């Protein structure tokens, strides 16, 4: 991780685009020294209580934004022909898109895909703070701030999921096809905070489910159901992908008919 920091710092020095570059570089270096993933996430969880002021966090975020995002989203996040404006999308959108590795995009020709995040949690928090500061929007939702385990209702979440989510994400949250090569992703790896953020920000093709149409309590129910299906044991043997009858039919022909025919060949062959 620190290696990546150093590379970033070098980049910042080399380009030195703005007056914020030097302090930002120092900040980045500070994070790099002795910061571990757990520490960093602790930092994101509790951004306001650190000794770093909010304004410097925003400044860091702005720098990171200028370096990594502005070429598509515009110098002032005003958007461009290839990427939407980010004014008013809120920190939640940044935390979701960058935190799940969807942004920055690897391949513009495709839908943004989940991958290993390019930025670390501290950087993501800084960028989220910057975007949130541009114009208020839904703010970052951390895993720890959600009481889904205590307050969520799995069964009700299942009903809500089947009404609002399963048509795209499939009955067992395995994902599904949309038009023209787009797709709704599998939710098997999604963390509670990310699920919440996705619902309130509506990333990519996904519509928004704000707190008036899907109450915070209902969102906790949905999260609890998704967590339950993520840990669903395989009651009847291997799950075959949980995508319905297509894989079952394939297995019936390949393994079912295949094995039976194999034995029939042996059964009718001449013994020596």
């Amino acid at each position, binding site marked *: 991780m620190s290696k990546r920091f150093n590379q970033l710092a070098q980049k910042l020095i080399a380009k030195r685009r703005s007056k914020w570059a030097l302090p930002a570089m120092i900040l980045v270096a500070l994070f790099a020294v002795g910061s571990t993933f757990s520490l960093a996430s602790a930092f994101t969880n509790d951004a306001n209580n650190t000794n770093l002021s909010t304004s410097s966090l925003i400044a860091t975020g702005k720098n990171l934004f200028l370096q990594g995002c502005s070429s598509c989203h515009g110098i002032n996040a005003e958007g461009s022909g290839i990427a939407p404006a980010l004014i008013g999308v809120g920190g939640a959108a940044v935390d979701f898109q960058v935190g799940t590795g969807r942004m920055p995009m690897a391949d513009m020709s495709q839908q943004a895909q989940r991958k290993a995040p390019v930025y670390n949690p501290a950087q993501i928090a800084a960028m989220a703070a910057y975007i949130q500061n541009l114009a208020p929007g839904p703010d970052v939702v951390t895993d720890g701030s959600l009481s889904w385990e205590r307050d969520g209702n799995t069964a009700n979440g299942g009903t809500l999921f089947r009404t609002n989510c399963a048509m795209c994400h499939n009955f067992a949250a395995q994902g599904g096809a949309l038009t023209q090569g787009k797709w709704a992703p599998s939710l098997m790896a999604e963390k509670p905070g990310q699920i919440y953020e996705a619902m309130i920000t509506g990333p990519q093709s996904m519509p928004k489910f704000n707190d008036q149409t899907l109450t915070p309590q209902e969102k906790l129910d949905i999260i609890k159901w998704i967590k339950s299906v993520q840990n669903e044991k395989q009651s009847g043997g291997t799950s075959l992908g949980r995508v319905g009858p297509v894989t079952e039919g394939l297995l019936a022909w390949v393994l079912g*008919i295949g094995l039976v025919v194999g034995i029939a060949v042996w059964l009718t062959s001449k013994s020596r």
Partner: protein
Amino acid sequence: MKKSEKAAGSVANFVDERTGAAAWAKKNLTKVFPDHWSFMLGEVALYSFIILLLSGTFLTFWFNPSQNDVVYKGAYQPLSGISMSEAYASTLHISFDIRGGLLMRQIHHWAALIFVAAIIAHLLRVFFTGAFRKPRELNWIIGVGLLTFAIVEGFLGYSLPDDLLSGTGIRIAEAIIQAIPVVGTYIAFFVFGGPFPGAVFIPRIYIVHVLLLPGLFLALITVHLMLVWYQKHTQYPGPGRTNKNVVGYPLMPVYMAKAGGFFFVVFGITSLLGALASINPIWLYGPYTPGQISAGSQPDWYMGWLDGLVRMAPNIETHAFGHTISWNILAPGVIIPGILFTGMALYPFIESWLLNDKLEHHLLDRPRNNPNRTALGAMSLAFILVALINGGNDLIATHFKSSINDIMWFSRIGILVIPPITFVITKRICLALQRKDREIVLHGRESGRLVMMPHGEFVEVHTPLDKYDTYKLASHPQPKALEIPTHDESGVRVKRPLVNKLRNRLSRAATEQVAAPSGDELHELEHH
């Protein structure tokens, strides 16, 4: 005489004095069955049916075919407190509260998939080898009927648990019924007892699924097997096999042991599938309500081709005189399947009419020796396969990173283009294989051994075939094309000239093949 023999003797005596069965039983216990793996496919279907009866009976002890609402309070926590139909709740009960219940459910469903798959595999074997020809046309028609009922039976069974996936399937079935012109709306209201979904559909299809159709199956299977028994099994051509005999193993003991053992094999494999691979996990689908849906809603595979046809249908409806005709539903859902199944049922008669073939056929064709029929079968298969692929287009799109729109267009064009191409290619492959057979019979097999001739040329030594293989490869019939003249002997024009012309033309296509080497050719070669 041993004690056990004595006991058996007295039982046999008791039965025979009341039925006179001894002579009949003796004759049938020595009945001869030819041995080939492809003759076992029908048995797989039969055994799957027995497995379905056994596992299905188990399930009926707990399944409650009712659409009354209950609140679930069973062992599966993620659905606890949800309102659902008793049918769904009792299926959950079988899956999670009855020991071995889930296993039986899975065995039942796997057996159902294998049942239809085996019927189709059996049908393909019968088709490609020409086993449907006289005198077996009736059995072919019964077979087509069994396939049709099996598909319906499977669909009804898949619908019974009243889960979100199967409910969606019923919704689509209802739309197909509703699309039938003039009477469709009425039939739909009668079947569902009012507007969809109603509260009577599950109880009604339950009795059809567990009594009516199984009874029909039993009757048709009995007739099917009695005809096989009475007409004796067909056999592949080969040395010693003629149209007038049947070569194989006697029922007692060899065939009894093999066929009986094979039942246990099929049951065992189905059980292992039921143990190791999850099928129809209804607890994940959730209870049915018409306002919900899941991505990738598909039917079981034997309905998948129909769903694929419906998906690719052009969106045409006729709105005229205050009425609506949905061609986008009728064409793929009623008309095309109707044509396919009617054509399939009539095929034996079409083929015999084309060749004016009134003979009994007990020797099978090797598929290559009837290139036209084989190509026709491959063509139909290609049609169904393209439709089937389109039935899973959404899953193909997500798993192979493509677009449903592209797959749909591929299927729309492919369903018109791929079958004819398949016909041409298959026919050519058959002719090439015949040519190769002819080559081998006349010149022997390539031995891979090179020999230098006195003048320095290298030639490969060909080992001649033995008389058995020669006969196997060269004994197939060479039917002649029809040549119905346009005028009869007295110069009067024959009736229906166009039909005759068509018949001549089609029978020429149907008889096109590479001439089998004759005895004379072989004889000539041997004396070189």
